[in-house]
């Protein structure tokens, strides 16, 4: 019969990788740099919105989506510490995110929004 884990005094101690995960966070300088990068990307996005030649070009939509994805990933990795935390948290976040993204793409195909855009 398996031993009751609650009776093991060592069970209350954090595992080595957890200990590292809880303490290996960036310092405030990194956080400020990340904030500056996020601000710069936002300025870039808004600048692109006001330049008619950029809006009319084929790169406008992919560029905005890429910049948005970079901002999203930056916040998740550095501010939410997913880059430094346990792998299980990454799975818990990216799993549903992947399902949601696939659902979004499927729905857009189903309702003809993506087909219409590719056709232009």
């Amino acid at each position: 019969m398996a031993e009751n884990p609650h009776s093991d005094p060592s069970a209350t101690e954090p595992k080595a990788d957890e200990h590292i995960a809880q303490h290996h966070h960036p310092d405030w300088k990194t956080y400020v740099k990340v904030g500056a990068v996020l601000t710069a990307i936002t300025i870039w996005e808004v600048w692109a919105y006001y330049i008619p030649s950029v809006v009319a070009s084929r790169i406008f939509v992919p560029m905005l989506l890429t910049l948005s994805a970079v901002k999203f990933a930056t916040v998740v990795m550095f501010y939410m510490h997913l880059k430094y935390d346990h792998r299980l948290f990454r799975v818990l976040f990216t799993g549903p995110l992947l399902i949601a993204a696939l659902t979004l793409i499927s729905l857009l195909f189903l309702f003809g929004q993506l087909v219409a855009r590719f056709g232009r």
Partner: protein
Amino acid sequence: MTAPAAHHYTSTGLDSRKIAIWAFIGSECMLFVSLISTYLIYKGRSLVGPFPHDVYTNPAGETFNPILNIPVTSASTFVLLMSSLAMVLALAAVQNKDLPKHTRGERVLGSSKLWLWMTALLGTTFLGFQAYEFTSFVHEGLSIRTNLFGSSFFTLTGFHGAHVTAGVIWLVTLLAIDYRRGLGPNDALNVDIAALYWHFVDVVWIVIFTVVYLLK
């Protein structure tokens, strides 16, 4: 019990509360993607204006300008991004509460109250921007019942605003605890969980800002 190093036994070795908040955030991803999907499916299918990016003239001859106010929303986006920065600094201040602080800069960075206040204030400012935007839209003739754009826009941004409101309330409770007995390293996990929620609200807005406001 509250100390991170003395939490109860779990098979993963990770605190159940942190696993729970990540699972919750995963489910919230699905909620917001469903709302964003709805917005995108209805995009460009409104029969009557006002429209987000185009001028509209109704049969009575009334002309409606493009409804979205990009400068105001850019400012509110910046405010929310900075609130995320303030939130990580609040978490770092709580985690490093016990470290000695010799300089004025270290004392400022180590003040959890200051950064929690800043985060709550910036969150409230964002909500103020949203209230202004909603009010001006209604005055310009766009309500939740006007057209497909109005319905999907107010539902999506309204849900997000409700999440920001819940986040501000959460931050205020943390501030109350900080004033009452002080937040220290033993409370770091509780602040971390609140911070994760707050950053999630921020990343959702990053997507909404691009999809709703910038993509024509």
